[in-house]
């Protein structure tokens, strides 16, 4: 299994190759090299998955962790050392498959989508860097390796969001994404440090082994501000996850991150990077459930709130990528909720399994949605819903695959989303009715806004670009009327078709056989009470969307009018950006940064300047001694001799 290392290494080599020599190559050659490399990774990942799940993975009916490679990288002390290695267990293998698949699709898709862009090679180099970091993250054997790759992921995400670096909004968005996630990562780092300070290890295996007994014993009941230190540490680690996975209130960067190229959004901000937080919590799940169940409870509520919150905003947005972004936030929150409501072992751990399941299926259908949206944008040169409409007759493949993805996310059987979402709802149903009903409402909202999107793009007739509520965010004007939209080229449609196939069939995988909270397979069955309720609400959502958006009508505007302030608030994302702006500008800048600035300017700089001043003055004084004037030297010499002689004589 040592070859699993190559899954991680190949993208890195590609990054070096394309990054350093890319400009020497023709852009299409660079793209094809990147794609082939990613293809090899994907093949390797599938081989690993096959070997693991159907070969060596299971011992005595239990999935065991395999560590084909691990070497000590930095040793600081006996206890503190940072290792790098490859860890294979059900979730990491599953993530390998997801990442390489989606990444490969995006690589192929970008050949068409990014054609003719300046910096094509740079784009592929960064895609490879991202793949490398993300793959390194999921196979991390210890929490510090994960942190290293976690930051690398952040960096590559930053560079890809800011890919159009000449566009001020893209630059601002990339900065925002970086700073917000960085801020969250601060919590992550502190959490890691606290955790490892008490447990004396970074290793996932040791941390989670034996019902996380190491964590529960080593903290020895220390408390801080009424909560145990373990709780604090894990809550801080969750903060890092919340930042990457865009949980409320750290979600603000994700919608803006849509400034990046659309395939990037599909890869990073829908399928892989944003689920890193979920993956983190899943990775440490035994620790959470045994050492800090309160944190898990908190995760559930934060997730439920975020899911609802994002879904409501998604309904009002008019930029199709932003709709998808909020949908992503909402769906990731779903996964978080599933983890939060999960127990440990067998059917108790249904939520854990459901979360991973949803992660798996969501990656495919959300990537499909984004790529479909990219295809549409490619055709009409606008992000605004109002510039679209009636595209079905021009773009059959895009339309159909998009429809499949919408059905999948809405949770209509037998598409994949139905199965995973149903498991989550079932897990929530047995755990906490409030959360269940919230999620149920969100499921309806999801169906509604996805089909609003679908119908507006592909069926409705195009509205005027200056239609009500349109904030003309489109870049190159509205091209819909000027030339006929046409189907995207083959490199773009093929990934759509492949992903559509995945979206249809991945739900049929008996996921509980492979992934469970305690690594012992169990069997699930569809809870029909829950299933029927969720199907019902999805159908209701779709029907409403059909009535309002299938044909052009004044109905939606009227409803928006009726909703009044609430609609406006949702349209403005509940003013979260403004709140954060106020917090940072007014509170943090004025009351924290200003004093620190004063301290820096006057005390730190002052002391440094003082030192410099003293040095300068003394050197100016000493400089006079080195005048090169012989007579002065002679005088000093003579006088010194006299003084020494006098001292010898008189003392």
């Amino acid at each position, binding site marked *: 299994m040592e070859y699993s290392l190559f899954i991680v290494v190949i993208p890195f080599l590609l990054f070096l190759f394309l990054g350093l020599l890319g400009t020497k190559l023709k852009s299409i050659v660079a793209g094809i090299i990147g794609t082939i490399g990613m293809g090899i990774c994907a093949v390797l990942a599938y081989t690993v998955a096959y070997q693991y799940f159907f070969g060596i993975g299971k011992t005595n009916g239990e999935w065991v962790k395999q560590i084909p490679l691990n070497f000590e990288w930095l040793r600081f002390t006996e206890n503190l050392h940072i290792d790098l290695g490859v860890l294979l267990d059900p979730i990491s293998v599953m993530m390998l498959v997801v990442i390489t698949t989606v990444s490969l699709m995006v690589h192929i898709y970008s050949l068409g989508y990014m054609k003719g862009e300046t910096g094509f090679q740079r784009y592929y180099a960064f895609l490879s860097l991202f793949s490398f970091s993300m793959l390194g993250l999921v196979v991390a054997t210890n929490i510090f390796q994960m942190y290293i790759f976690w930051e690398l992921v952040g960096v590559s995400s930053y560079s890809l969001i800011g890919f159009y670096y000449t566009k001020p909004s893209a630059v601002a968005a990339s900065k925002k994404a970086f700073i917000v996630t960085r801020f969250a990562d601060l919590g992550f780092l502190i959490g890691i440090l606290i955790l490892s300070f008490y447990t004396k290890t970074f290793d996932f295996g040791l941390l989670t082994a034996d019902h996380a007994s190491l964590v529960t014993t080593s903290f020895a009941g220390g408390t801080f501000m009424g909560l145990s230190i373990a709780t604090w540490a894990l809550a801080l680690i969750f903060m890092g996850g919340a930042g990457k996975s865009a949980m409320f209130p750290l979600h603000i960067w994700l919608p803006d991150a849509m400034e990046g190229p659309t395939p990037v959004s599909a890869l990073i901000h829908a399928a892989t990077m944003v689920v890193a937080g979920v993956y983190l919590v899943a990775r440490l799940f035994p620790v959470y459930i045994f050492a800090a169940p309160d944190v898990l409870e908190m995760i559930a509520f934060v997730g439920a709130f975020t899911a609802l919150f994002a879904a409501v905003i998604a309904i009002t947005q008019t930029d199709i990528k932003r709709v998808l972004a909020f949908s992503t936030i909402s769906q990731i929150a779903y996964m978080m909720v599933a983890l939060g409501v999960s127990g440990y072992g067998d059917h108790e751990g249904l939520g854990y399994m459901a979360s991973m399941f949803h992660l798996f299926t969501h990656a495919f259908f959300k990537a499909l949605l984004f790529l479909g949206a990219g295809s549409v944008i490619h055709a009409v040169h606008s992000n605004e819903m109002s510039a679209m409409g009636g595209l079905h007759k021009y773009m059959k493949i895009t339309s159909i695959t998009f429809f499949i993805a919408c059905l999948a996310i809405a949770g209509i059987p037998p598409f994949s989303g139905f199965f995973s979402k149903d498991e989550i709802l079932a897990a929530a149903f047995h755990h906490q009715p409030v959360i269940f009903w919230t999620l149920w409402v969100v499921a309806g909202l999801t169906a509604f806004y996805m089909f609003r999107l679908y119908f507006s793009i592909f069926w409705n007739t195009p509205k005027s670009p200056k239609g009500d509520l349109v904030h003309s965010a489109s870049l190159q004007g509205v091209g819909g009327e000027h030339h006929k939209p046409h189907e995207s080229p083959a490199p773009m449609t093929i990934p759509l078709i492949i992903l559509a196939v995945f979206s249809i069939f991945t739900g049929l995988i008996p996921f509980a056989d492979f992934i469970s909270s305690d690594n012992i397979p169990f069997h699930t069955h569809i809870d029909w009470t829950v299933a029927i309720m969720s199907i019902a609400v999805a159908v209701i959502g779709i029907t409403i969307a059909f009535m309002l958006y299938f044909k052009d009508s004044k109905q939606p505007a009227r409803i928006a009018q009726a909703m009044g302030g609430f609609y406006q608030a949702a349209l403005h994302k509940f003013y979260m950006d403004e709140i954060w702006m106020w917090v940072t500008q007014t509170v943090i800048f004025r009351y924290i940064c200003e004093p620190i600035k004063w301290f820096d300017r006057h005390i730190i700089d002052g002391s440094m300047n003082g030192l410099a001043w003293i040095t300068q003055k003394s050197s100016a004084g000493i400089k006079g001694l080195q*005048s*090169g*004037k*012989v*007579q002065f030297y*002679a*005088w000093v010499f*003579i006088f010194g001799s006299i003084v020494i002689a006098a001292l010898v004589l008189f003392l």
Partner: protein
Amino acid sequence: MIRMEYYLIISTLMFFIGIYGFISRKNMIAILISLELVLNAVEINFAVFNRYLFPGQLEGMFFTLFGIAITAAETAVALAIIINAYRAIGNIDIKNLSKMKE
């Protein structure tokens, strides 16, 4: 009777007059003249110590002898340098010689 201290006092005075001249003169040849005084005072001392403290031996005298020769050599080279400097910068004030630093 001439005591040894008389010679020594004279040489001391001569020595420090030379030092004074070395420090206070501006012209390089004048400085060199002061230096000659200093060396001369030292040579007197050699001869005097030899004669009074170690009569019958010749070390002090020979030291003086060699000292005179070395002084002559040193003066010759120093004056050559001064003449060269004069050609380069037009006068022989020690202050102006600091130009050679740059």
